[in-house]
């Protein structure tokens, strides 16, 4: 199956509801996932970077451990399918250029401290006067209003203030933050959904809106039952390793050659496990009668299940558990994942050629339309790669004019 974009093949062969939508992305890493999912669905996303490049270009690891502005692998991941222009938004000429670009945009995504864009004359109030149908999405650690709106944040602190870190890890260890950029990705998918709601609404009203996305709130909305359980019964869901106490003894177990995630939660799944273990006492003992009792007595159950599981090689265990419809997966390391048979069969990682760093693999857009699950992915742009194209097509600037602006430090 072809996986690289070629002449004539366009994103519109796939699922491209955002085709024809132009997005100006002046955000940093906090807005990256939002504009990534828009770009993956056909939006024309122009990343507006400071002349020194977006902060993500400086984040390791770098391809072949050689750091330069084009080699950050997280940049390559987040900014595939986007274009890049440079712009110094702190200068008067720069803000002027942005205002002109806004006339041609449907969406603007930003992540500056609340108030900063207003100071530059680029707030929602200002830009909606220029383009009343503009959808202006602000993604920040604590949102546009409230006593903490101007607080600084990073992935570590936004995940913590959202409540996810509190419930993560082991009771006798400090809480453990998540790898990668979970809180930013949560905020990003919420923002993308919000932008689409606004696009639908704009189709009826003709007007844009300001989207206020607090990363803290996006995280808090993912903390499962933690908040309402506390409000309802005063229950504080503290750290308990992989499995919530009420779901034990489901969880992680060791096979001969690695770990599996084994979740026989429903009565039919539990009964299937008991039959498989050929241990009728488990079925008859009132201590293990239902989910609640099994959770109360999980300290007795876990070693029994562990002893059963460790007799298996994990791929055998996986197949036999799934034959019995018991939710089970392997605990994959990263090398395990890239060679996982499902990943290979479903093109989960798409090979792409990047002009500077060569062959890379990008996660595919996670959906199938009309039976297609392979999507052409364009590599992330070089810094300012589309200056001439964008300033030329949208503002009528010649490449000489662009060169002048570049030496003046405006772009």
């Amino acid at each position, binding site marked *: 199956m072809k996986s690289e974009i070629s002449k004539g093949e366009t994103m519109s062969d796939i*699922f491209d509801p*955002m085709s024809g939508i132009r997005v100006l992305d002046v955000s940093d890493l906090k807005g990256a996932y939002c504009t990534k999912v828009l770009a993956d*669905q056909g939006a024309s996303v122009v990343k507006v970077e400071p002349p020194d490049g977006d902060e993500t270009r400086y984040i390791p*690891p770098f*391809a072949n451990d050689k750091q330069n502005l084009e080699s950050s*692998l997280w940049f390559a991941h987040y900014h595939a399918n986007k274009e890049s222009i440079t712009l110094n938004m702190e200068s008067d000429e720069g803000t002027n250029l942005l205002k002109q670009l806004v006339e041609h945009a449907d969406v603007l995504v930003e992540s500056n401290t609340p108030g900063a864009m207003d100071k530059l004359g680029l707030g929602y109030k200002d830009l909606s006067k220029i383009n009343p149908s503009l959808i202006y999405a602000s993604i920040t650690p604590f*949102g546009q*209003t409230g*006593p903490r709106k101007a607080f600084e944040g*990073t992935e570590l*602190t*936004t995940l*913590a203030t959202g409540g996810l870190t509190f*419930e993560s890890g082991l009771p006798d260890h*400090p809480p*453990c933050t998540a*790898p*990668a950029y979970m809180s930013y990705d*949560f*905020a990003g*998918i919420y923002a*993308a*959904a*919000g932008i*689409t*709601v*606004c696009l639908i609404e704009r*189709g009826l009203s003709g007007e844009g809106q*300001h989207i*206020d996305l*607090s990363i*803290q709130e996006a995280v808090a909305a993912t903390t*499962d*039952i933690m*908040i*309402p359980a*506390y*409000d309802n019964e005063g229950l504080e869901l*503290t*750290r308990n*390793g*992989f499995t919530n106490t009420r779901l034990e003894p489901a969880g*992680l177990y*060791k096979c001969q050659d690695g*770990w599996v995630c084994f979740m026989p939660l429903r009565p039919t799944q539990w009964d299937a496990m008991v039959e498989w273990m050929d241990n009728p006492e488990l079925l008859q003992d009132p201590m293990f009668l239902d*989910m609640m009792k099994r959770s109360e007595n999980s300290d007795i159950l876990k070693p029994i299940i562990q002893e059963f599981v460790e007799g298996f090689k994990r791929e055998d265990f996986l197949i036999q558990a799934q034959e019995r419809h018991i939710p089970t*997966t*392997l605990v*994959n*390391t*990263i*090398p395990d994942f*890239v060679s*996982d048979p*499902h990943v290979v069969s*479903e093109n989960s*990682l798409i090979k792409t050629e990047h002009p500077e760093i060569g062959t890379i693999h990008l996660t595919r857009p996670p*959906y*199938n*339309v009309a039976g297609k699950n392979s999507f052409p992915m364009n590599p992330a742009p070089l810094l300012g790669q589309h200056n001439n194209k964008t300033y030329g097509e949208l503002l009528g600037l010649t490449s000489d004019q662009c060169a002048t602006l570049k030496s003046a430090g405006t772009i």
Partner: protein
Amino acid sequence: MKTSKKKLPLSNIRVIELTEQGVGPGAGKLLADFGAESIRIESPQRPDGMRGPIPERQNKSVLFNEFNRNKKGMALNLKESKNQNILHELVSISDLVIENFSPGVMGRLAMDYDTISKINPSIVMVSLSGMGHSGPFGKFAIYGPNLMTWSGLTHLWNHPDIDFPVGSQTYHPDFFAAIFGAYLALGGLFRRMATGHGCYIEAPEGEMGASSLGGFYMQYLKNKQEPQPIGNKSTHMAPHGIYKCKGKDKWVSIAVRNDKDWQGFCKAINQKGWAKEPGLSTASGRLKEQNKLDSKIQSWTKKQSQTEVTEILQSYGVPAGEVMGPKELLEDAHTNHRKFWTKTEHPLMKPIRMEGQPIGLSRTPWQLRLPPFMIGEHTEEILRDLLAVDES
């Protein structure tokens, strides 16, 4: 329940939810929050497992309520052909079908895309499942936590000194997939405004989660380096971590992003000597010394509350934030100022606070219109008012 007169952006959209548990209903909830008329179909013999197994408590489930505000509920036994006809009639006057049953179930209910698109060519349908409908693991039985172990997330979500996988008890793949599912549904509806055509989107939740780990997969494939768990540390920032504060199990997160933050940080914690040390003036220097720095920082934070540390550091422009639990979140002045906690009234339960809607829209904000529905609560109303069916 107070409702505003403001028109909601999705008030012209009717959604049929053939969903259960978290992901499907979570996707429907986002659309319902913005005004879609969302109708969930439940089996009267086997209501949503999220309600729990005890019949007397099935209309009083906090977990169910978490995912099902602003919706209507019909109880229909879909094994009866007359009810399949009713469902088909509903399809003919609806815009979107969301489902997250096991692959194959919709076919058995005569609600697969081939069938319903013949009834209504402009219907948009979104199928959400753990591993998708195809591939060696398509049709696998899957819960949210299974997907975290499959993608490699669980392996990486750990302190480096622990030699067994831990991860987190969160069900967040389900929550992430719910919003992604809503995004896909909204995209289908938006596309239909231009083309008039519906479409069928089938989305595996596992791959949604994997799309957050792209840098790690590339690190292995490109650099032949295996990413390892690093706990609360950073590969490129120091100091960076979670530190114990005054009180039982109270922690604060601190991240010094750059040299400018470092100068502010040294002032904030009264370590003027550090600010002058050339060995600490760069990130690489601080990374080398981070264990020493961390123990000094730890002895500073443990004398103060998590909020004191947060506020002091923030006053110097340094990112810091409490590791908040449910108590801290519900009492938090900031989220309360923003009215984020929504008290959901319910005919059979005391009002319970839940998260509101993170998407804040300036002109057409979300509204709380309906409490979580009881089993079959709106069956009669829908049969009578929408479908003009005689309930006998």
